[in-house]
């Protein structure tokens, strides 16, 4: 039963990810990206990480896709059509499929090392919070500084220079 759910979610995720990279219309790509991120959240639920599934939907579905859609609207060219897009696809397809074969062979070779554990142990949210704010407190604070710097930097870069000269 859970295996069936897994296969359905992976089919959706892989189909949507394919849509992201081959779609000719950029807005369709963004919608496919949203579906991919949602199916990753479904994977997190299957893996008993409900908190991360919620974070995934809130930050990726809520923030990242919206930012991408805003950027698409602000950098609009014609009807979002792109011509001569896939000029370099043979090399890209070769590199990525070679990497895929390499990764899968490594994973299959390493599979006995990890055992055939099929039991999924969920992390309790309380344990997650305790570890994050005690053992990982310094990286947590550094991450907040990184976010602040990125915020200020994004504002400075995206600011319209002509308007700021007048003021």
């Amino acid at each position, binding site marked *: 039963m859970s295996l069936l759910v897994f296969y359905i979610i992976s089919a959706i995720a892989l189909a949507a990810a394919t849509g992201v*990279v081959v779609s000719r219309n950029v807005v369709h790509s963004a919608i496919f990206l949203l579906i991919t991120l949602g199916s990753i959240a479904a994977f997190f639920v299957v893996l008993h990480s409900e908190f991360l599934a919620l974070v995934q939907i809130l930050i990726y579905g809520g923030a990242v896709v919206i930012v991408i859609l805003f950027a698409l609207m602000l950098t609009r060219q014609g009807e979002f059509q792109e011509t001569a897009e896939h000029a370099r696809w043979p090399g890209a397809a070769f590199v990525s499929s070679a990497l895929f074969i390499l990764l899968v062979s490594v994973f299959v070779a390493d599979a006995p090392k990890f055992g055939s554990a099929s039991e999924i142990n969920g992390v309790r949210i309380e344990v997650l919070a305790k570890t994050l704010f005690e053992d990982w407190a310094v990286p947590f604070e550094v991450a907040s500084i990184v976010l602040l710097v990125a915020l200020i930097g994004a504002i400075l870069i995206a600011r319209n220079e002509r308007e700021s000269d007048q003021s």
Partner: protein
Amino acid sequence: MTLLHFEIVGAALFCLGLYGVLSRRSGVIILMSIEVMLNAVNLNLVAFAAFRPYGQSNLMQTSNTAGETVLAFVQAPDGLIITIFVITIAAAEIALAMAIILRLFRSRGSVHVDEISEMRG
């Protein structure tokens, strides 16, 4: 459903994202492909964390349902915490990258990365 299933799906997502980064010209789509790659990595991290067996290092002080502090085996949450950091950095990255793309579009009316070659040596 074993760890290998999740590893293979993660690898496939990562390689699809890599294909997008290498083959597309639009900067926005390259960023979306990078997001797909980051999510593949996150999926692998969470799967490894979920399938990790209990060990001696997983003994941790925690409270039971009655609110008493007890010493119990818990699943080590390190994989999930790294995932949280990856999501944080991805959010910062997408904001900065979109600002740069917006700026490029204003100055030359295109978001195609192969038309931007001033810094080529």
